[in-house]
């Protein structure tokens, strides 16, 4: 791998930018691998990278049916935070956040991690109580979170409207200063480049059509659009299509796939210095480095695989944005799109072994998987390499739904659903 630095940039600038080469190899699948990851999004690429980098399993392939980072990795609103209520969740998301903090250095690729702060607004007395409960729970778990009065929130985010005469006035907010955003494509590309350099094969346009098991029922091979590939250790990281892929091995999961929409405005000069979220009136907004306002809407009501959704869902979010940020009322929206998110009943993910020996799954991230990308990849790699979960993902099993040990972030309302 050619190391990137200020010096290489300068050299290429004088050389007419003719020396840049592809960031990863374009290869045909080998007949056999030690590990296969199904799904070439951020999570899958990260898992492949950590399998090679931390566990020495370099005979690894990532199988992607489209192109890498073309699913939810390229469709999300890039918010990173770890202010979840329950101990298990706080440990999981803060593990990811700590990996984000030096990811650019580790990968030698600028993922543009920007800890600009995530401000979650409270609009009612109940909201205020819930937010303060979260702040105390987070601090008890070593996760930073602090309460801001409306005036302090406005000082932190000047375009915010804190007038008391709106339908849902801002009564304050919880600020996680370590939270922020990153560049989604760079995360996929950075992991792909670093994994490739360690020998991982990244195989695009290679849809998995079958999971082949031996006489004992264990994983033996993967049938793909580009032929049969033998492998006894397979990790599925396929987001909204996880039920479809695991259905090939007759594994049923507590998942439902919903469209989640987002939209961006025309680019403008820097106006929103942080990420602002409101769970109560359902809006979240940040500003990309290109200047576009990046706005997340909610999920549509029904399960679907269409990667689109209804306009009324966006319009509901925009009415909330217009109330919180009256200055944006005349902004024009440039693009909107949908991604398919896999949602569990308790809104917490699954990173676990399945009942099939050699088959592992990372799924159920619902509407908030991007923030966990380095952490989930790291933990899936650990689980696959050692055939047992890391202590951080040990609670995030499939069996918790049978045993009643839910990690109920849904009821905790720590996340915007």
């Amino acid at each position, binding site marked *: 791998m050619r190391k990137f630095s200020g010096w290489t940039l300068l050299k290429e600038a004088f050389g007419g930018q003719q020396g840049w080469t592809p960031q990863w190899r374009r290869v045909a699948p080998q007949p056999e691998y030690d590990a296969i990851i199904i799904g070439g999004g951020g999570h899958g690429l990260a898992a492949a990278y950590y399998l090679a980098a931390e566990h020495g399993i370099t005979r690894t392939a990532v199988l992607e049916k489209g192109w890498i980072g073309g699913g939810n990795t390229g469709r999300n609103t890039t918010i990173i935070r770890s202010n979840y209520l329950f101990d298990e969740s706080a440990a999981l998301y803060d593990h990811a956040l700590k990996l984000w903090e030096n990811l650019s250095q580790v990968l030698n690729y600028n993922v543009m991690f920007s800890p600009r702060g995530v401000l979650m607004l409270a609009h009612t007395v109940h909201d205020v109580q819930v937010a303060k409960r979260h702040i105390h729970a987070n601090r008890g778990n070593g996760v930073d979170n602090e309460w801001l009065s409306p005036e302090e929130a406005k000082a932190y985010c000047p375009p915010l409207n804190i007038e008391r005469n709106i339908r849902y006035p801002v009564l304050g907010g919880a600020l996680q200063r370590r939270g922020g955003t990153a560049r989604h494509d760079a995360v996929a590309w950075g992991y792909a480049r670093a994994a490739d350099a360690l020998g991982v094969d990244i195989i695009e346009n290679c849809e998995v059509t079958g999971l082949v098991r031996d006489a004992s029922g264990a994983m033996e091979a993967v049938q793909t659009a580009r032929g049969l590939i033998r492998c006894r250790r397979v990790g599925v990281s396929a987001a909204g299509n996880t039920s479809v892929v695991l259905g090939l091995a007759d594994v049923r999961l507590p998942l439902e796939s919903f469209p989640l929409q987002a939209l961006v405005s025309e680019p403008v000069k820097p106006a929103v210095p942080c990420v602002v979220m409101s769970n109560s009136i359902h809006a979240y907004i940040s500003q990309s480095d290109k200047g576009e306002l990046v706005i997340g809407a909610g999920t549509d*009501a029904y399960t679907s695989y269409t990667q689109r959704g209804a306009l009324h869902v966006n319009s509901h979010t925009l009415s909330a944005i217009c109330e919180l940020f009256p200055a944006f009322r005349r902004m024009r929206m440039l693009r909107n799109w949908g991604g398919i998110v896999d949602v569990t009943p308790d809104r917490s993910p699954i990173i676990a072994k399945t009942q099939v020996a050699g088959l592992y799954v990372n799924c159920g991230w619902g509407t908030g998987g991007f923030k966990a990308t380095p952490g989930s990849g790291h933990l899936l790699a650990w689980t696959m390499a050692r055939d047992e979960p890391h202590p951080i993902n040990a609670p995030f099993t499939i069996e918790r739904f049978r045993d009643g040990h839910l990690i109920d972030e849904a009821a905790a309302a720590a996340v915007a659903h």
Partner: protein
Amino acid sequence: MLLIQCPYCGLRPELEFAYAGQAHVARPADPSTTSPEQWAEFLYLRNNTRGIHAERWRHVRGCARFFNALRDTTTDHFLATYRAGEPMPAIQAVQQP
């Protein structure tokens, strides 16, 4: 926005309806003899079909009644709607050529 045929009221916009999940999921008849695996199956495990999906809807801002529908989750096209209690129509019968 989808247009949905309520079997009681006719064609109405999606905003009048609430989605209510996979259809024909029967509650275990005898709770005291139902195993944890069977409870998990009933409460949490879903087909999450990529293709034609039988699902419940409720015309919550109309007649307020539940009904069932067959919808293709790859296109969001409704193939049929039918009243609660009626058997699921054969998929071949409702598919357009």
